[in-house]
């Protein structure tokens, strides 16, 4: 009898698909498709050409979302552990200031500068993770403080001035190759910033889904006590995810500096909220334990595409905020419906 059960395993192992949970699983992808179709329909046309679909316009969308997208990818790790990181926008700003300052004063060279800034970001994030785990503080509070600290450091270092980056081959000049971050490749179509986003996302997808570390992240978020009792190094995992958000914020800050040729202590404001919105729209649960990076990426691009359509039609920014808010609520409601349907006793 048990033998029969075991043999029938592969057949019965096929998941019975519930349309609603499938919809939620891919909600941001579906949302992105809907927004894209809407974009085509509502796009202004010039000489019969759909402006929304113009390569230039598409490139603009993916370039505009690359910074928050990079951050959202890291944020996905944190949120899967049921945490939150509010410091990312400020850390982006601090990283851009650091990058610009080092480029224009220290003359460290491109690679050392970039590595140093990313290491600083990771260290900043890890410090927040350590404080949060060591003193059992809510990550909300710790990273809220981290936001202030990062912003404050950026202001101190930059003296509240734009630090402009000039390129060249002498003291006080940044290596010209750094300017590539503002360029487009492949027939002037693909923005380099977007490529960075893609690379970060691919590496992250790999880490989350194909490594033991990724499994630890899910385990900690699913049930921290169970994970601890199962021998999962919970503290290490938590510190690591904040190091990851710090690290990607560093990357985003470098991209920011490279795209705009300056470092500024006042940029990146509100990026943490856009990133969190992308993650939530992407189907990752704020309760932790479940989530998808593909969803996050689609969520980020969707928000960018939506903003783009509204801009193309000259609809004012206030309406954009309303639309974004409505989408976040919709995504959350869908998730809650599925949770209720699963109805775990």
């Amino acid at each position, binding site marked *: 009898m048990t033998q029969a059960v075991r043999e029938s395993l592969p057949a019965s192992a096929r998941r019975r698909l519930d349309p609603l949970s499938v919809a939620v699983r891919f909600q941001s992808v579906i949302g992105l498709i809907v927004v894209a179709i809407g974009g085509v329909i509502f796009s202004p046309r010039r000489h019969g050409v759909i402006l929304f679909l113009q390569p230039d316009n598409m490139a603009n969308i993916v370039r505009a979302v690359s910074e928050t997208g990079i951050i959202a990818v890291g944020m996905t790790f944190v949120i899967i552990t049921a945490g939150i990181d509010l410091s990312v926008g400020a850390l982006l700003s601090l990283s851009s200031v650091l990058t610009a300052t080092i480029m224009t004063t220290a003359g460290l060279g491109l690679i050392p500068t970039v590595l140093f800034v990313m290491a600083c970001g990771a260290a900043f994030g890890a410090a927040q993770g350590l404080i949060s785990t060591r003193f059992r503080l809510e990550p909300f509070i710790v990273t809220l403080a981290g936001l202030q600290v990062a912003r404050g450091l950026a202001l101190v270092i930059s003296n509240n001035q734009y630090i402009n980056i000039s390129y060249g081959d002498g003291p006080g000049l940044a290596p010209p190759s750094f300017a590539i971050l503002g360029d487009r490749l492949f027939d002037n179509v693909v923005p380099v910033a977007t490529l960075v986003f893609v690379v970060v996302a691919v590496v992250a997808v790999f880490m989350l889904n194909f490594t033991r570390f990724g*499994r630890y992240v899910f385990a900690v978020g699913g049930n921290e006590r*169970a994970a601890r009792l199962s021998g999962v190094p919970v503290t290490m995992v938590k510190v690591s995810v904040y190091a990851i958000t710090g690290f990607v914020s560093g990357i985003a800050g470098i991209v920011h500096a490279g795209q705009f040729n300056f470092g500024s202590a006042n940029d990146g404001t509100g990026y943490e909220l856009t990133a969190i919105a992308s993650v939530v729209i992407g189907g990752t649960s704020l309760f932790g*334990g479940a989530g998808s990076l593909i969803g996050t990426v689609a969520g980020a691009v969707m928000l960018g595409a939506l903003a783009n359509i509204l801009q193309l039609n000259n609809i004012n920014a206030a309406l954009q905020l309303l639309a974004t808010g409505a989408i976040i609520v919709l995504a959350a409601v869908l998730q809650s419906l599925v949770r209720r349907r699963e109805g775990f*006793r």
Partner: protein
Amino acid sequence: MTDAPLLDMRAITKSFGGAQALRGVDFSLKRGEIHALLGENGAGKSTLMNILSGVIVPDGGEMRLDGEPVGFADPRAAQTAGIATVFQELDLVPSLDVAANLYLGRELTRGGVLDRAAMRRGARERLMALGIEFDLDQPVGELSVGRRQIVAIVKALTYASRILILDEPTAALTAAEVERLIALTRQIASRAVGVVFISHRLEEVPRVADRVTVFRDGRVAGETSPKAPQSELVALLVGRPLAELFPRRGETFGAPALRLQGAAFRPTSARPGWQAPRDVNLSVRAGEIVGLAGIMGAGRTELLTALYGAAGPGRWSGVVEIAGERAKLSSIADARGRGLGFVTDDRRGAGLSLRDSVGRNLVSAILKRVSPGFLMSRARETELARKGISLFDVRPPRLELAVGALSGGNQQKVVLAKEVLAEPRLLLLDEPTRGVDVGAKQEIYARIRGLAAQGFGVLVASSEMPELLGLCDHVVVLRRGRTVAEFGPGASEHEVLAVAEANEQREAV
């Protein structure tokens, strides 16, 4: 009018999606009667009680209360009609204290301001009536499961003017508390309240119930007198005679896997309500199952978690040996490194990630073995998870199913299998069959014994004396953190209890 039963449910049907949970069930309850309801998980007893308490609306059938047809659209309607339920999942607010929980939703006020003094007084009186002493200021979340259960029962009593439904009220209680609860239940019934008593513990049924109804597969399998022999009840429950609840005992044992002599664990900072192991002498040999008896608060869970390095900062003193070597057991990593495995008594809170799949839960304690390197090996993961499923015959045997969707018994099998897959030399089990039906219990016992036969040492803490005496090769009694006696397999429940509960008054000072 007085001849009409208090409650008369007829031909009740209910289905969820495609699954028929109730297939035309009749159930009645008289005033002052304690009616025991037995049935395996999924037999339909919880569904019927959910209908009675207004949580679920039935598809068909008729329900009469005092002869009047009734139907409850929501739990509040049932409450208003004088029906109250104590669910297994206790509806308490963990962050509020005992008094606040007892008055939740009906707070006493004085001029619009909470009258804390009056509520504390009332709470103390109600608890005193049960002979229970509570620190009323303690948040409920800090209480043990057993004490939380008591608070929930006391809370429900405020509403139950006609019918009180107790859903496995004794699952987490010690023998002494069970007696207290039974006495209390009788007292309530004597006030012409009908009591529905759902239980998994067959042995307590004759002592508490006036009448027994057994459910199976959404039907009433039979009604019988509580004096009926246990074998008859079991046969009704599982639909076939069950050979033996407990497997044969072990015969040969190996070297000690665990030896404690004068062992004590001192937490770095004092923890109120946490009974530290103070003077523990016991050994568990390879192939042996040792039981840990003791009343609630005797320190059973504390001993197991401290051995597992999961009791927070602190250190062991005295002799603590794992497989003949001195061990510090100061962290979970250290304990696991020495081959200890632990199964918590709180499978939902600390054992499983409920929304995650069965497969992922099964391998969560052996991820290092699944993938020694950086990358996950999906093939190896599936292979090991399958092994876990077959080790405990988890049903349905589907790796991708969310573990929270399984029945309680199968969830418990997953928790056990997860630890067994890690191949510990010593397995620490805390209440391994809590909230599990008879059929699953038998399977779990058989498998624990099978593991011991393979050379595992097993230390089992349980509040169910028959379980300890039936399963274990010997039983050690713990009292206030000390081992005070040891019994062989022939001991009687009475003997062990006498030792476990002795000197309570004197030592309590």
